[in-house]
């Protein structure tokens, strides 16, 4: 698909070690409670657990029955109860209730809580307050990192986003630092760290301190460069409709822990099928990064090839047939199965998208990104709301409007908010308050209207003066100014040129050639400059929390080290989308680099906005 890079990208390090370490530690912790025990597992830990162990593993370590934590009285008859939970107050309170009701019934059991990935102070405080401190032993299962694919590692902490960016609670910063420390110990030493964002800075600090405490051991690095990116540096990208295959599948079917469930409409039978989506799926790995418009032709080509391969068996003699069956047939059948699944999924996507008039929707998004025909876009959003089309989708468009326009005019804000509340329920007052707090859906403040004026003035005067004006105005604006950033970093390619999606020329292909994702553009620019020099204006607009640190300055020894330097770990604090991953993969192919994405969770516009709802 892409033009061949100037050099082949190095292959990624082997991350399966992370799974093995997590499994072994879990087994160790289970053995700390010898004898038969019942295990209660927090709902959102089940899928991650599934990826590294299974029921047999647990049974071998004397786990008798398994339950999902449901915050209800329990029915277990076991003398030992083990709780594998997230460090949440509500869950710890529930465990305390279980213990207290046993006490009231005069029942004696042993209890153990295993917090994943770590315990918080407030958990102990709750146990103490509920009078069960000491009755319950606690431990932490440091399962920080789950490899989802050869180049994606997830911390599986979707709550990171809301708690850090909306509530302002830094509880996961240390976790991120620990995760970095683990990666550094196994795949480092890192030679350079770049970061953008407040949380990125704190995570770096947290890791650096761990680093100082622990012994330095020299090993050959697998990963040389690290990026830390706060999600709030770029909210525009995750709020855009995804149009690369993997992103679309996630938007529509929701990929969970690297696996997706295709319903009957895809499998064209009455059953649902769960499929792992990763590089081991030969069909998927070839289409995951493609713009959706190319997927059909690819799949049909693939189907034809398959037919030819099957057809080979005609005219074979017995011996050839035998070889064919033993060597090729299984592979072909497997491919056949995958192919029909992905064809089914594509059809289903097409159907859904045609029904919701996807073309119109994309047109609106693109005009918002371009800042062109904004009034029409607002009218479209208004109609979307008055027809009560998807609640989250309407919210997404409103946020995109606010982010790209640097806030809504007070008159528009009031009208759209009223309409929204009428269509989807008055309780969304709370949603609006959250969105305002986060800064993604706001009213323009009197001072900020200056930036609107600035863009108008900018058109009248020459570039240099405009640049100065931008400087002057952006220092007035509180929030980042998307329009100015977009201009500075050329995020929106000129629309008069034809964009060939089959032969993408830049990262904009992931949004049909309409927009280069800001987050990935920043990574690209910093890599190119080996730092933030020359990006001063940009950093001012992304709130000045950038940093760049390089170690010691020890020169590379021979060719081996440069390989590590071409492996770049990008850690997204607050989540990243499959589209961003696709963009980084593209950049990697172009530049002969290998990007490894570490994220607190895979996100998309739906998940991001749902996290901000209040019920």
């Amino acid at each position: 698909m892409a033009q061949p890079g100037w050099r082949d990208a190095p292959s990624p390090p082997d991350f399966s070690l992370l799974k093995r370490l997590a499994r072994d530690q879990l087994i160790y912790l289970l053995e700390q409670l010898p004898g038969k025990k019942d295990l209660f597992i927090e709902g959102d830990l089940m899928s991650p657990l599934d990826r590294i162990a299974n029921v047999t593993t647990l049974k071998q370590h004397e786990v008798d029955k398994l339950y999902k934590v449901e915050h209800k009285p329990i029915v277990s008859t076991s003398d030992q109860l083990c709780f594998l939970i997230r460090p949440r107050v509500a869950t710890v309170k529930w465990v305390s209730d279980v213990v207290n009701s046993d006490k009231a019934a005069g029942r004696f059991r042993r209890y153990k809580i295993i917090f994943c990935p770590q315990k918080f102070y407030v958990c102990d405080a709750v146990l103490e307050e509920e009078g069960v401190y000491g009755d319950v032993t606690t431990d932490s299962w440091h399962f920080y990192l789950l490899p989802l694919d050869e180049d994606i590692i997830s911390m599986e902490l979707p709550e990171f986003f809301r708690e850090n960016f909306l509530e302002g609670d830094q509880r996961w910063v240390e976790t991120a630092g620990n995760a970095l420390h683990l990666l550094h110990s196994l795949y480092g030493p890192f030679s350079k760290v770049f970061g953008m964002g407040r949380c990125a800075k704190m995570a770096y600090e947290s890791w650096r301190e761990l680093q100082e405490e622990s012994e330095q051991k020299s090993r050959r690095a697998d990963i040389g460069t690290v990026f830390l990116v706060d999600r709030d540096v770029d909210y525009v990208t995750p709020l855009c409709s995804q149009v690369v295959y993997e992103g679309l599948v996630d938007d529509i079917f929701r990929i969970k822990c690297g696996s997706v469930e295709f319903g009957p409409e895809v499998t064209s039978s009455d059953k649902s099928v769960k499929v792992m989506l990763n590089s081991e799926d030969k069909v998927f790995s070839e289409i995951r990064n493609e713009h959706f418009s190319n997927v059909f032709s690819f799949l049909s080509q693939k189907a034809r090839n398959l037919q030819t391969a099957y057809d080979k068996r005609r005219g074979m003699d017995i011996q050839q047939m035998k070889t064919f069956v033993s060597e090729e047939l299984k592979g072909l059948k497997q491919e056949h199965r995958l192919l029909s699944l992905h064809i089914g999924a594509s059809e289903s996507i097409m159907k859904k998208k045609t029904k919701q008039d996807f073309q119109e929707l994309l047109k609106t998004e693109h005009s918002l990104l371009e800042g062109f025909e904004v009034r029409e876009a607002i009218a479209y959003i208004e109609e979307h709301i008055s027809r009560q089309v998807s609640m989250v989708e309407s919210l997404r468009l409103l946020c995109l409007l606010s982010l790209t326009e640097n806030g809504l005019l007070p008159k528009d804000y009031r009208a759209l908010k009223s309409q929204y509340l009428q269509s989807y329920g008055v309780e969304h007052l709370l949603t609006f308050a959250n969105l305002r707090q986060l800064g993604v859906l706001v009213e323009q403040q009197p001072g900020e209207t200056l930036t609107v004026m600035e863009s108008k003035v900018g058109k009248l005067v020459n570039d240099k003066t405009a640049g100065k004006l931008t400087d002057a105005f952006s220092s007035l604006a509180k929030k980042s100014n998307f329009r100015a950033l977009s201009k500075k970093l050329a995020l929106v390619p000129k629309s008069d040129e034809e964009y060939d999606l089959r032969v993408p020329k830049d990262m904009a292909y992931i949004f049909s050639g309409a927009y280069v994702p800001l987050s990935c553009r920043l990574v690209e620019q910093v890599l190119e400059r080996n730092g933030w020099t020359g990006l001063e204006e940009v950093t001012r607009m992304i709130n000045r929390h950038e940093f760049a640190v390089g170690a010691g300055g020890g020169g590379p020894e021979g060719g081996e080290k440069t390989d590590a330097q071409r492996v770049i770990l990008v850690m997204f604090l607050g989540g990243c989308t499959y589209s961003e991953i696709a963009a980084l993969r593209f950049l990697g192919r172009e530049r002969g680099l290998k990007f490894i994405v570490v994220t607190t969770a895979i996100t998309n516009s739906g998940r991001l906005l749902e996290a901000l709802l209040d019920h």
Partner: protein
Amino acid sequence: MNKGKAEEDDYWHSSKYSAFTFDDDDYDFTKLKESQRAVNSIRGLVEDDCEDDEDVEKVSWSGEPVGSILWGVKETASSLRTSGDTQNHGFPKIQHNPPLPRQSSGYSLSSLFKGKNKTSSFSSLLDSLPDTSMRVYAPELRKPRSEYKDYDSDWNSEETIRRMRQGKAYSLENFHSLQEKLLLLDEAVSSHNSNVITAVLIFLKRTLSKAILFRELAEREVALRHFIHLLKETGEQRILVELLKKLGRMEDMALLQYKEHISIKDENQRKDFLKTCLSLPFSPDDSTHVQDHYMLLERQIIIEANDKRTDTEIFKKHPRKASILNMPIITTLYYSCFYHYGESEGTFSSPANIRKTFRISEKQYFLTALGARAKLKQWSDVDRLCNTTNWLGYTKKKSPIGFQRVVEILHKNGAPLQVLQDYMSLVDNTEVRVSLAQKFKCHDIVINTYKELKDRQQLIVYQSKLERGSPEYQVIDELIHSLNIRWKN
């Protein structure tokens, strides 16, 4: 996703008494052994570490994270060591904020990281301490107990925070003066460690009066946000309300109280609660919205009570699928246009009353009423909805959403051809009209429009798409051979 989740829940629910199975049951014990062996063999590469290993396992119950990832990592990392030389990867600190104003501190910030404790170990002291609140273990005990320090020594705030971060024993009880307490808090905040911040906040909450605590938090944004989140999590609504009030964040306080309605399930109680919300200090706009919310639920309760018992024609023919309680305003309007159309404005359930009460725009009303009446195939209602009478008494069709959307809605609801054509002919833009007509196969409209445009070529093109001999085909045939029309092409 919701469906998937529900299914999953069902599954878990049903498997209450029996063990579940994970997806891949083909995992077997040998694989586990394999991976264990693999890990062990890596470990074995470093001979002298093996003994430590055994030692450590024996001490395990103390809560020490033996076998933790960190531990495992160290093992693996050391086994991968090829030579003894250590490289110095001196990663620098980044300056976060301007340094804290420090009133009374003999230590520089750097002393925090140097670690200057080398006193005797008093591990047994810990166990003999009577008051549990006096000793707290931070979550991660990274260092052996031998490093615990005597309680008698006077730790300042920096030292205490450092110990808390490292999971060592500490005591906050000696921080008596307000100044000491605040220094402790500032130190905690500058450590960026939310566990430490929480611990200090809980201590301050216990030992300071609310008035003082709130006053001090007002100037400390990070600590304040942690405190608010802590109160939210632990459900201490009353203190939270008090705090917001004291801070003068009246709107936040109002919203917080309003939020409580979500957890009230009984509709009458919920309604009563919403009534009490009316006097809260919302912003003027939000105040109107909350008023709407109250009036809406009040109305819905009345409508629900009536309609549950009613068995008029419409309810028999189209039984209600769900209760109207807690539905949005527009949904309620649709419901009223569906079941209560034509009622006089005086009744709570009439569309006119709802429209007026909730200040629904003409456009929105039209769209909703059109949808409901079209669903019921009441085409005459649709007609009436579009009719306007001017001062001379002529009626004219008007649509605030444009006739294109009207046609689309009618088509979606299976309107007959004649009805579709009537509205299609009202679409002003001929291009749009033709494309709509083609899409919905209204041949007359296509033909008439082309005739109107005197576009003979297009007519011929269109004819070629039709079935030969069909009535439409005939009509076009006659038209294109007609001599009375002055075609433009």
